[in-house]
Each structure stands twice: as structure tokens, then as C-alpha cells.
């Protein structure tokens, strides 16, 4: 049994259920017993570029008003939590959102699930713009888009039994007759590796990892097509994290659910998501497939983030890993820096960075970066590559000779067939 690691209780195969997953997982377990090298039950999801986008965020903005004190409570400023974020999530795929706390990744997740109404921008889910829908119009969509929350201690009502918690979505959306709610709840508990007999217990009787499984069962109850997972494992112990990540991968494979996976742990995101977006102060600074982001990052912020991750293999040599030191703290999103938002902490910032915001430029088949000086680590170009595209000279002053390229600068979600090749400084085509 050494390879059975998806957390199903022993003897799962004996329980007769309509759901295919249980039988299949049990079969898988038997196969694994016979030959562990044949199947890879938890191999990470690979990118499938042919699948259409199930979700498309286009220029998403969320400004929270800052009110003055006193009776009038006038709006004096705005917290620019999310400022013009565009991305796509392919059906059955997963996109990871990473960044430091306060960069707007959780707010993005709450916008996608419409827990907040965006200030502007579009959220196209299967072609329908969720940003414009009223509360009542949202209700049918909520069956398709569900959320898994970070803290399994505060996201479950302590006064409700597990059966009520998982069964409530079924009743609200009237998907199964009342009599069958209980059996469906038990099926769901089985899927997430909990004992179905425990539907009558309260959340406090479960451990952190088990509670997170209850949260996952609740999110799965309506068979959504998109799950927004906001730091689903960061509140859990390391040995339990892997159990939950494997469960989410099994669920993704079995039910073909797309994930928007929000986390600050770069290693977990790399493991789970074939595509990753790096956010800084409300904007996406770099987005691309796993290989581009982790092996060939071109934005100085991504490079700094990756170099700061402590590495276990450092044990063999001892001492600290070389890393890029970022000075200071993240600036306030109420009054972000002009031009590039990262320039106040950027080791390679120049004059143009304060004057012009770098466009999110496509530099590879599936790789976009928002930087005036995108380059490999330590090989950043000396001249801004974006100057001509923006119609300015190297110092950011207007240049009559250059003509801005509207086509390249258009910020659209997804990827185009042509891109700007950094090594040859020419346009490349797929």
C-alpha cells in the first residue's frame, strides 16, 4: 500500500457509489500495488494550449474608496488594489497567481467569483461578462464558479454540521431532490477522502487538513467548471499540504475543473500550475508558462522573488544562496509610484521607468513581461527595449522620429501569434 497517497480511507473500493472517481481511484491503487512505475496518479497538470479559455479577465480594475473622517465621509483617495489585470484560464487547466501580500492577488480571486464588483473591466466566463451581472443574474453562474478559502478554521460555520455545510449549496441551487441530499453529501465526503459516516459531526471535531477537505467538498458540491483556490494549503502543516495538493490534482483530472490558484508559495504554484502570473502592486508584471517564468524569468521582480526562496539543497554546501536584495517595502497602493510600479525597489531602474509605464509585452510564444529592460538575470539591456514602441527616446522624452506601435501595445488577455524576440530584437512569428 506504500504508493496509495491520495488520502482515501482503506476499503474505499467496497463502498458502492454512483460516482466513478472512487472506483477509479481504488483501481488505481490496486494497479499501483502491482507496479508502481506504470501510473503517476499525481503528476502535475500539463499545459494544453488547444483548449479554449473558460475564463478571461480583461482590464480588470478594483479601486476601494478611502473615506475621510467626519460626518461627510467624502472619498479622498482610492486604494488601487487591482489595476488593469488581464489573463486567461484554459478549460480544465490552471493559472497560478503569485506575489507578495498586498499585491492584489486575493482581490483578483474575489472579483472572479464576484464577491466584489469590479470598478471596471470584464470577466468573461464562457463568453458571458460576469462583471455586469446583478446579484440575481449571478446565481446560476455561481454553480459554475466556486471558491476554496485559505483558512479552514474561519471559513466553516462552527454551529453547522458537516452535512449542512456541504449540503447547503445543493439545496440553495435545488440540484438534487431533498431526499437525496444526504447521500450526495456522503459521496462528496468520500471523494475528498473523509469518512462519509462523519456527516453529522461539527467542524471543531476535525483537524486542519480535514477541514480544508470539507471546504473542498463544499466547493465541489455543484460540480463547478472553475474553482478559485485562494491559498488553499498555506494554513496547513507541510505533511498535510501535499495531501491536499494531490487531492486537488485528482479532482482537476477527474472532473476537468479549471483552477485559478492563488498562493504566495512559489514552489507550490510551480508544482500545481502550468501557467503562472506574477503580480506586483495590483498589476501583472510577468505572465507565462511554467518553463518561462521559473527557468527564464525576464522581469527583475520575478528574478528577485525566485532568488529569495530558501533551498533545501543548500544543505550540502552550507551557507546562504546568492540572491537579489530588494530594498525597502512595497509602496502604498493608494499612491503608487509613477511609471513602472516596481521602479522604487528595482535594481536596474532608469529615467524612463519613472515616466512611462512599461506595457505587458509578449516576448515568447506564451510569455509576457512588463519591463523596459527585460533581460536574463544579470544581462539586462542598457537601452530600453520598449522606447520605440512607446514613441519615446531612451530617457522617456517624446521622440518625433518614432511611431508608437498600437498593435503591440494593445493589452489583451491571452497570447498573440507574433511576439517581440528579445535576443534578436525582431518580431517573431509562431
Amino acid at each position: 500500500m506504500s504508493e496509495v497517497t491520495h488520502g482515501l480511507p482503506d476499503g474505499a473500493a467496497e463502498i458502492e457509489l454512483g460516482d466513478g472517481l472512487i472506483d477509479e481511484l481504488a483501481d488505481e491503487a490496486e494497479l499501483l500495488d502491482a507496479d508502481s512505475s506504470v501510473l503517476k496518479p499525481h503528476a502535475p497538470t500539463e499545459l494544453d494550449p488547444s483548449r479554449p479559455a473558460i475564463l478571461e479577465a480583461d482590464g480588470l480594475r478594483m479601486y476601494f474608496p478611502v473615506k475621510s473622517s467626519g460626518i461627510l465621509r467624502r472619498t479622498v483617495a482610492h486604494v488601487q488594489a487591482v489595476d488593469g489585470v488581464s489573463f486567461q484560464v484554459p478549460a480544465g487547466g490552471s493559472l497560478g497567481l503569485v506575489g507578495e501580500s498586498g499585491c492584489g492577488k486575493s482581490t483578483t480571486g474575489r472579483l472572479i467569483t464576484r464577491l466584489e464588483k469590479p470598478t471596471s473591466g470584464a470577466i468573461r466566463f464562457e463568453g458571458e461578462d460576469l462583471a455586469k451581472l446583478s446579484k440575481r443574474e449571478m446565481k446560476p453562474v455561481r454553480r459554475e464558479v466556486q471558491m476554496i478559502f485559505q483558512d479552514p478554521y474561519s471559513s466553516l460555520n462552527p454551529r453547522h454540521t458537516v452535512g449542512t455545510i456541504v449540503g447547503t449549496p445543493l439545496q440553495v441551487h435545488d440540484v438534487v431532490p431533498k431526499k437525496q441530499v444526504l447521500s450526495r453529501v456522503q459521496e462528496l465526503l468520500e471523494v475528498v477522502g473523509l469518512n462519509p459516516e462523519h456527516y453529522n459531526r461539527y467542524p471543531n471535531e476535525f483537524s486542519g487538513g480535514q477541514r480544508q477537505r470539507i471546504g473542498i467538498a463544499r466547493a465541489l458540491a455543484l460540480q463547478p467548471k472553475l474553482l478559485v483556490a485562494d491559498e488553499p494549503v498555506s494554513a496547513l502543516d507541510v505533511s498535510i499540504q501535499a495531501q491536499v495538493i494531490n487531492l486537488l490534482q485528482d479532482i482537476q483530472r477527474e472532473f476537468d475543473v479549471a483552477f485559478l490558484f492563488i498562493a504566495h508559495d512559489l514552489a507550490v504554484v510551480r508544482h500545481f500550475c502550468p501557467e503562472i502570473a506574477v503580480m506586483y502592486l495590483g498589476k501583472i508584471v510577468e505572465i507565462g508558462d511554467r518553463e518561462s517564468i521559473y527557468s527564464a524569468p525576464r522581469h527583475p521582480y520575478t528574478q528577485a522573488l525566485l532568488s529569495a526562496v530558501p533551498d533545501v539543497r543548500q544543505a550540502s554546501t552550507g551557507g546562504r544562496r546568492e540572491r537579489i536584495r530588494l530594498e525597502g517595502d512595497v509602496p502604498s497602493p493608494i499612491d503608487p509610484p509613477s511609471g513602472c510600479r516596481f521602479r522604487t525597489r528595482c535594481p536596474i531602474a532608469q529615467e524612463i521607468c519613472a515616466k512611462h509605464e512599461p506595457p505587458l509585452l509578449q516576448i515568447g510564444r506564451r510569455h509576457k513581461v512588463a519591463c523596459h529592460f527585460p533581460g536574463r538575470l544579470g544581462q539586462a539591456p542598457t537601452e530600453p527595449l520598449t522606447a520605440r514602441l512607446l514613441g519615446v527616446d531612451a530617457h522617456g522624452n517624446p521622440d518625433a522620429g518614432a511611431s508608437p506601435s498600437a498593435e503591440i501595445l494593445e493589452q489583451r488577455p491571452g497570447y498573440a501569434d507574433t511576439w517581440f524576440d528579445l535576443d534578436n530584437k525582431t518580431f517573431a512569428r509562431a
Partner: protein
Amino acid sequence: MSIPTTSTGVSSSNDGDQQEPFLVVDGLTVRFPTHDGLVQAVTDLSYSVRRGETLGIVGESGSGKSVSSMAVLGLHNPRQTRLNGSITVGGVEVVGASQHTLRSIRGNDVAMIFQDPLTALHPFYSIGSQIAEAYRVHHDVSKKQARERAIEMLARVGIPQPSRRVDDYPHQFSGGMRQRAMIAMALVNDPKLLIADEPTTALDVTVQAQILDLLQDLQREYNSAIVMITHDLGVIAEIADEVLVMYGGRAVEKGSTSEVLTHPEMPYTWGLLSSVPDVTADTTTRLLPIPGTPPSLLSPPPGCAFEPRCIHATAVPGDLCATTLPLLAPGRSAHHLKRCHLPDPDAIYEQFVIPEVAPEAGETR
């Protein structure tokens, strides 16, 4: 995560061999009587740390790592705690010491950095006055001098404009700055031993790296001993000289960092290493979680505490694992201790664990 298969761990902790350990914990047992019975939080734990050295303690929540280090500071309520064994800090016995003795040690010779700076700092008092208070308790100085010292410490830990920020309240600081302020408070009396209980867990990676840099700089400067409690093996690998792995209230593996992390000999340590993804691993690598959950400390298993979750227990003849507690005994080398019955852990590690955590390094695939 790939682990080099051939490399002899070079112990980096030989430098201070002549020196007496500053902190010696010997046979420490901590038990809490509760309504449900006696919680055996820590059982028979021994370790020692010299000045200038860093000991990393790894384990899950509930493994007793925080409880044992709180005992070093005498922070447990003696009426609700049963303490056995001995803890000496610079030659002074802490277990059973009077409140007066404890108070003279706390914050002076030994200081602690807590995980969550927002709950560890008092919201009603300014940062400066909290740091100054810690200084005045142990030094006979005026308020003005103490305030100067607070500003100096804030500057030392890298808070910008310390003379202005000294009057700020904790909520006016960002998470990383609060953690720095707490480090400033811990270091105000130049402690000889610093206990850091998950000091970077709540922080982002870039801030975490800054805080670890700071701790290392300060350690070099003051030659203090550091006990670093964390569950992040990457942090341990980068800053600790020695590692102590705890499970179910007991030490299960102990040795130099390079030894333990490159040639772990205890299945729980294998599990910790293989269940965490890392940023450079092959993405086809699977995560191998440790099945099950940690044992209840109310009624710990009679044998090895890890036996119910151990996938290698079958390699041990009979039901030795379930019935007999293994001793913390030397494995490959005299300084590498492990608590496990497995007769040949290296062979199992190479055959079963390495292929899983680093497929490119294993020959079986």
C-alpha cells in the same frame, strides 16, 4: 527536490568544540494535566547549543517544538505544567527556578522572537516604549537613555527614520517591519541565546530573506546562540548548523544540517523532504504526502510514534515498531542520531525515496 546521493556531509559545527555549550537541555519532559488526561507534549528531549551556533528545530504543529523552547524561558505556568529534566542556561538551572531568577534571565541572557508580531506586541504602547521597557528592566538607566537605545536598535534592524518611527504604534508598521521591531526588542540587551519561534512563517519570501540576513548578521556581531524553530526545511538548510527533527514530542533525528538533510535516516524526515515541492525540481516529480495525521499526545502509541503513518514499517521484522520505542541511537556516524528500527535505512532511502523525490538521480527508473 533532488538530493545529492554521493556527498559526505562536512560538519560545520566543529569550530566551537573547546567551548562549553551555552544552553543544555537534558531529559526534558513537559506534561500538561487536562480534563481529558495528561498531555505528553515533550518527552525526554536533550540538546545543546554553543554560542555562535544555530540549531534548527523542525516538526509539525503539535510536535512539541514550541513547548520545549518556551520551557527554556520558564514561560509555562508551574501550576498547570509538570516539568522534569534539566535546562541550564549559561550554567544556571531553569527548571524549578524561582520567578526572580527567571526574570533576570528572560529578555537578558535569553530572548525570544515570536511567530506573529501583531499579537506579540502590545497594541496600546508605542514600539519605542516597549523596546525601552525591555532595556530598563535589566539596566539602571534613565528613560531618555533607554529611548536612545531603542532608536539605536531600530536603526540596527533596518527600520528607516528610526527617530520618527520610534513613537509609532504596532499597527502603523508593515508585517516585515513589525517582525524587525520585535527582533530589535529581543536584541536590546545583547542576549547570548536567541530563540526564534517561526520568525518568518507569516512573511513573504523577500522579507523572509531580509530577516534571515539580519539574524545572521546579528549572530556574527554578538556571537549569540540561535535556536530556530521552523517547519521550512529550506530555511534550516540555509542558516542552521545542526538540526533536530521532532515528532510526537520526541527527538527523532539529530545531527549536522548537511548530514541530516542530505542523508536523512528516519522515514519522517524522508516524508518531510518528499512532501514539499521546490522551485527547481522536475515538475514530473510527485508529491508524496505523509499519510494520516500526527498522533494524539494524550495517548501516544506504545512503540514508535510515527509507526501508524510510516510506509516503511513493514521492512522491520515482527511488530517491533508498534510495540517498542526505538532509541535515539547513532546511525551512519556518531554525531548523527536517529530514532528508528529500520536495519538499513540508507538502502531503503536510495531504493524508495530518492527515485520519488528526484527521478533523474535514481537508477531504478
